């Protein structure tokens, strides 16, 4: 977790880490940026190996990422449109494809 916090800060995700406003909250259908999903889901496993394939800096194909997110993979549940919309997923996949390796960000 500490690693992810550090990574998030280095990636300029500090704002994304505070997307939930103080007080009773809602993100009903409010579009979220890729960093939000990376921090709250993907990054827990895909920040670096050997836990799961590290994705940052690997230029992962956008189509592959969107397919795996929607259908799942061994050890990874599928993520439905009700939790990440098609456009959010497309943005996330492009963000991952364009990312730099984790190590360079440390």
């Amino acid at each position, binding site marked *: 977790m500490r690693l992810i916090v550090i990574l998030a800060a280095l990636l300029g995700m500090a704002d994304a880490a*505070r997307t939930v406003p103080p007080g009773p909250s809602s993100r*009903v259908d409010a579009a979220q940026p890729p960093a939000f999903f990376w921090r*709250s*889901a993907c990054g*827990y496993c895909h920040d670096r190996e050997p836990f799961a394939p590290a994705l940052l800096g690997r230029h992962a194909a956008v189509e592959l990422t969107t397919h795996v997110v929607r259908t799942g993979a061994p050890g990874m*549940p599928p993520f439905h449109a*009700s939790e990440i919309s098609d456009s959010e997923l497309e943005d996330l996949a492009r963000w991952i494809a364009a990312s730099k390796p984790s190590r360079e960000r440390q």
Partner: protein
Amino acid sequence: MIRPPNVTAPAFDAFLAESAAAVGAAWVKIHDEDVHPYGRVMVPFEDDVHMPSAAVCPQSLDEVRAVVAAAQAHSVPLWPTSTGRNMGYGSSAVAVRGTVVLDMRRMNRITDFDPELGTVVVEPGVTYQALHDFLEAGGHDFWIDFPGPGPLVSPMGNTLERGHGMTPYGDHFANSCGYEILLADGTLFRTGLGGISNTTSWQANRHGIGPSLDGIFTQSNFGIVTKMGLWLMPAPPAHKTVLAHWPNRDDIVKLVDVIRSLRVDGTIANEGVLGNATIFLAAAKRRSAVFAGSGALPPDLALTEMRAVGLGAWNYVFSLYGRPDRVESDWLAAQRRLEDSGATLIPDVRDGTQINELTLKSFALFNWVGGNGLAWFAPVAPARGRDVKRQFDLAESILSKYDLDFMTGSQFGTREVLNVIPLIYDRRTPGRIDQVRVCFNELIDAFGRAGYGFYRTGIGFMDRVAALQGTAREDVNHRLKRALDPKGILAPGKSGIW
């Protein structure tokens, strides 16, 4: 296209059209590429056996009401889910093929927060991550308690499954208070004191006058819980996480008895987790890296691996919480009694799950063999050493017949131990799904004959497990179901209730 059983094509089309009018056509999922992921399971069945016909994704209570009304009108069964993970128990898949998933992820508001009492009210789609973020963003000094897949799953879903976590608030049902529930006929009501006009105490008292109803809506299909109150743990001023390990497999009897005494008298305030050598090994390595033979992993091999890294046959991770002087006092008491039982203690280890740090490290288990097969076998043992040993011996003897490795991540209540035993297998191996299913059924039957029941089970096994609890209890559940959902549209087959 799959249809729910006994529902005509025109009736199903009418249901889908009315649902689309309520939630928007984009949120009624009927195409295979959208629906099949809901039916993707880790439990030992082919996906198609428990495949839903569609998924409907409401965003509000009003939308849920409209979908339920459509389901009533056309006798279409719904399978309500919050975040729908429930990995190793059936994920989002349905007990009866063709049931429509009611996916409530889009209902993701935290609708109330009381910083004085330390309570929140959440909708089904709120995740532990969202709740954690909410508290952190507001600078609220409370902890949350979450299960293994914490960031991705919901407090409501896990609580309704009566899941457990790793802090003193680890019994999630016991730390929930006040539900809003929609019945199949459209009746909306609140449990506890939530029905009082201008209620002041919905999240303060679980019961009010009369029967305490929260429990009958957990692991059940009597209604749809649309809001839930939760109690939050005040962040403790100090905490200390400890790993106690015992060298020999035969130490299980004495170690259970000493842990029970420390739990019952309150020295150890959290359930903690007791793992055998194999589950600790699986969290760190792949099976193929340590064993190339056939059959189940030899227990001595796992123990040798654990001893090489300074651990034992049994490894118990627990935490102490409170004022610094209390933590120190509890540590000294726990240390003495655990060491007297033959334990070696490693103080000040780190386990994020016990100190409010969200993690998905438990997913490492999926790497053990690969292949996405997981079924949790979860018997309850009384917290007596001899019973826990009997359960472990019985489980291991059956698992080994099917070349499955015996692992346990046992959680200590006070007078119960939840022996959460994962059956990890490769779904890609021809015939393996069937073998594991046969094994699981054999385990259920053997434990039932030995006088044990279960804390939780997954789709495909619910009837068998529920039957162990006797026909009279099944009949009472059935009568409640007939009274509250006479057409049986809500989650048919959930927990063996029809």
